């Protein structure tokens, strides 16, 4: 049987896809800001030599990296609201589940970036009388951030891909909208192909950016210009 492709029939529903894309972008933006802010905080705590900061941060990182992100989403959606006795919209549960998971990963990126800077830099700065925060801001971070960027670009790709998991708890993002449409007009092939292509178009620029950054970093002998 030759399959009759009917993309035209599906594409008339473009506003439906667009609504999904907007929610996907909204969720990705939330997750990204969480990952950056949380990653810096938890990463700094993890880097600290004081146990009172270091241990909770390590526990947080290990806990969120060693459980599947979908389990975290499901837990925040079904279990957490019962525990704290509040209503939890799917969007918030997804943002918490994926977001905290991403915080754990970006914290490790942040810490690794800081640790990649030679101790000599710290010693030299301390020798000329600079304080911890000043050393961090003026000497360490400007160098470390450049080294973190490729890993963080990869993290962004993972975050974007993870937004699709929110469909499992009925958040109206792109995949969920596609599912709705596929069930209504019974054109799963066209619908899911469009969904896949849209995701690829959204994500691939980030991949190109990360390839370019990695190439730039390597061609400078590990010393970014």
């Amino acid at each position, binding site marked *: 049987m030759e399959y009759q492709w009917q993309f035209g029939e599906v594409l008339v529903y473009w506003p439906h896809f667009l609504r999904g894309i907007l929610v996907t972008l909204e969720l990705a933006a939330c997750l990204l800001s969480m990952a950056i802010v949380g990653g810096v905080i938890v990463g700094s705590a993890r880097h600290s030599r004081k146990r009172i900061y270091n241990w909770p941060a390590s526990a947080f990182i290990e806990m969120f990296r060693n459980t599947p992100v979908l*389990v975290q989403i*499901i837990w925040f959606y079904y*279990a957490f609201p019962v525990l704290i006795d509040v209503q939890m919209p799917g969007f918030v549960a997804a943002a918490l589940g994926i977001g905290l998971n991403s915080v754990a990963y970006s914290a490790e990126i942040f810490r690794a970036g800081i640790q990649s800077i030679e101790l000599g830099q710290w010693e030299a700065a301390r020798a000329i009388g600079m304080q911890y925060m000043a050393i961090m801001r003026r000497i360490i971070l400007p160098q470390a951030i450049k080294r973190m960027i490729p890993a963080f670009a990869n993290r962004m790709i993972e975050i974007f*891909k993870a937004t699709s998991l929110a469909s*499992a708890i009925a958040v109206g993002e792109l*995949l969920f909208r596609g599912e709705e449409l596929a069930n209504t007009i019974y054109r799963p*092939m066209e619908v899911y192909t469009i969904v896949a292509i849209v*995701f690829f178009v959204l994500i691939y620029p980030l991949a190109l950016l990360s390839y370019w950054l990695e190439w730039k970093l390597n061609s400078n002998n590990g010393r970014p210009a």
Partner: protein
Amino acid sequence: MGQSWDFRLVFSNFDFLVEGFIGTLKISSVSLVFGIMAGFVFAALRMSKYKVIAIPTSGIIEFLRMTPLLVQLFWVYFALPVVLGIKLDAFTAGAITFSLQNGAFFGEVFRGGIQSIDISQWEGGRAIGMRRSQLMRRVILPQAIRRMLPPLLERSFELIKGTTQMAVVAYGDLLYNSMILSARLYRPVEVLTTVAAFYLVFLTALSFIMRYIEHRFDARQA
């Protein structure tokens, strides 16, 4: 907090969760085996001398890596059967999807490992009259495998975590069974917390084993 914790119900239904965990192990191991095989194929095609093979392959690899697994799973499970006029069960659809996506990642790991070996190793081998296949087996791969191992284990870890997405297509893995159980008992906090804790213990143990393998491998090679 409205109700008190009660874990007894969870433990009296432990068999059902164990059944789910076996489901998780099944889909993970099948996907790992086929994923690694697909990875070899992807890497070989991607490194082909012929551009007509190498370029489309790298396009496919990029597409598989840069789209969400769940989208691919829906495509294989809901869309592909309509086009091919066949029936696919959730396990088969999952195994195909996981093998292909992870195969694309594995393929890049293999390629990266092989291409990281200095070109002079090839030249040296060729100079003493070794054939390409001999050279690959005796000179390049033994060195490359060492570099491939850490990303390979890392990706396998991601694969196993990713199998929870099988719950979305109602395959009886650990997550799916726990969602069914939590709905049946109306005890989401206890059931889901237990299962999350179980995943934590299982995956932490697994990451320790992986670190141990890596360590042993390094020690043996050094």
